[in-house]
């Protein structure tokens, strides 16, 4: 029974990680900015769920579309208010990265203010866990089903969207060569804005599921930053499908590998769970800088050529 719980935990964690890190990869490939505020978009989702379920007492899963919408609005406004003016004024990548750090700190401040206000209203807003608000199908928790279905659906959707629709082709064109895409009549600014809002939306969606299984607090984003970046980097940082695989490597590794290791070397190792993602980042950057997508692609190509 305990073993089963650990598998469930690992899969839910990986699902949420995949949902969150897709957006990081998308913003990086499209606008070439590693967004350090990305994990804070996830925390926003956590608080949307808290507001909907506890404050407004509405059904839990209503929070999914609302968190997604809220996330897209925030992502779009971040792009319009901060990133776009900076790119326009020719800011280099370092300045853009610092700007995302500043956004992170602003979001952190706002979330803490909101948490303080909720506290005043008598709602437990730090370290909250909403497992009781989830539904259960015989023995399986709702979040397990929903998050798994979401990932399958999203992978299919992204595949069809990026490779089969005109807008998807426009996005890929602006990634490959922005100036040429502009010449061909693609509104590149529009694509940038879409990528920022869509990825913030996904992170927020992932965050809205988070408190249904894990305890959430205003620092959730800060603690999840290493695994989210690790998923993207292990996945190659430029490939969305690589990122999904990367998220499962990080998520399952962090939960299952460390768990089985703890049976051998002792439970003390569980405290250093997060070091796994740090290690993976360094191993990937030093040994396979192109990540999973690079390795897989080369192998597939070799097989095809033979």
């Amino acid at each position: 029974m305990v073993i089963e719980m650990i598998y469930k935990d690992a899969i839910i964690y990986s699902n949420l990680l995949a949902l969150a890190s897709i957006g990081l990869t998308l913003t990086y490939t499209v606008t070439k900015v590693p967004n350090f505020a990305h994990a804070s978009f996830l925390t926003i989702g956590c608080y949307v769920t808290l507001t909907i379920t506890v404050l407004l007492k509405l059904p839990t899963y209503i929070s999914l579309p609302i968190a997604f919408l809220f996330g897209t609005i925030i992502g779009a406004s971040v792009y319009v208010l901060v990133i776009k003016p900076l790119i326009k004024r020719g800011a280099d990548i370092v300045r853009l990265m610092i700007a995302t750090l500043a956004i992170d700190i602003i979001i952190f401040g706002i979330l803490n203010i909101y948490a303080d206000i909720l506290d005043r209203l008598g709602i437990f807003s730090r370290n909250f866990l909403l497992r009781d608000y989830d539904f259960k199908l015989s023995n399986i928790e709702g979040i397990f089903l929903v998050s798994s279905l979401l990932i399958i659906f999203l992978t299919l959707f992204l595949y069809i969207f990026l490779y089969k629709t005109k807008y998807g082709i426009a996005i890929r064109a602006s990634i490959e060569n922005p100036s040429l895409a502009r010449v061909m009549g693609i509104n590149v600014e529009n694509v940038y804005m879409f990528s920022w809002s869509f990825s913030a939306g996904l992170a927020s969606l992932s965050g809205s599921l988070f408190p249904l299984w894990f305890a959430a607090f205003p620092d959730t984003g800060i603690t999840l930053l290493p695994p989210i970046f690790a998923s993207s980097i292990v996945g190659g940082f430029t490939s969305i499908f690589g990122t999904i695989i990367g998220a499962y490597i990080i998520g399952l590794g962090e939960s299952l590998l460390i768990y089985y290791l703890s049976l051998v070397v002792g439970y003390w190792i569980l405290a250093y769970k997060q070091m796994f993602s740090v290690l993976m980042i360094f191993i990937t950057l030093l040994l396979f800088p192109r990540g999973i997508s690079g390795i897989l692609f080369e192998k597939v190509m070799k097989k095809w050529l033979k």
Partner: protein
Amino acid sequence: MVEIIVDIISLVSIFVIINLSLNLEYGYTGIPNFGKVFFVAAGAYVVGALTGRIILWIYGLKIDFIKENSLAVTKINEILSNEIFIGVLVFIFVLTVSLIVGALLGFILSLPAIRLREEYLAISLLILGEALRIFAYNYEPLVGGTLGVSVPDPFIWVNNYGINRFHFYAILLVSLAFITYFLVNRMVNSPLGRTLRAIRENPLTAEVYGKNIVRYRMKVLMISSALASMAGGLYAFYTANVIATTYNRFDWTFWPWLMVIIGGLGNNIGVTLGALIVIVTRKLIVIYKYSFEKIFPFRIEWLEYILLGIVFIMILIYKPEGILKEKPVETIPREKIEKLRKTERF
């Protein structure tokens, strides 16, 4: 009021050292170090872990420094209040160790740092800072894990002469900041400084002119990491306490970047000014905190985060070069060069 000014002076001095090291890295050489907290924390942990243990070892006291921390520190402070020589010696020794550890870490990290692109370097340093915090928070033998450790005060004897401890530290920190400022300023206005700027502007051209960029970057990372580590150690001595949660990326990565960008990249006076502006603003907010807190239904420090974040973004957008612009390199006047030539020192 005096306490606040003394506190501001000490904090500004510590941050001036950190900012100078960041300026050396990014402002002059173009290495974006987003993991400043890593080096600062390393220095602080050296101080937290070593100072007490060394003195316990010198006097042969059998007290566990981590488990019986308050007892150990009280005992040590009792001893040190009469031992001026040992106190100063331990202070210098521990600070030197933190410098060496910082330089060593800078050296180790420069190996991947030279190979990685800007954004990957920034990500890995930022994540590394987080990793060190997680490690120190969980690994008790280092600095006491979740509870932290108290650091014995090597200058506790100043009380015997009727000097306030904090006043003494303010003077000490200011003088160390001045020395650092002087040395860094000399460095960036020397041929080395010009080479660094050339590397920042165009690494390829610098390489064509026969400069070994890899070694220059390595040197800069070592020196600036050592400085940051020293600053962390000084902060640990100043607050007489080390706990892993203090060394987070907001306080020790974000604030130095904010100060450096506000003051002006590549300008040492600007960087100092930046530290002064940000710290005075933060202190003012802290002072008026209680009167604000009656109006707002939340803790005021969150508002401080939001305001400074917004100010930072505004500056990045509207005044990216900061208050003081980078000045051209100071070169020796022509007459002086000719004089030198006559004395045949060339």
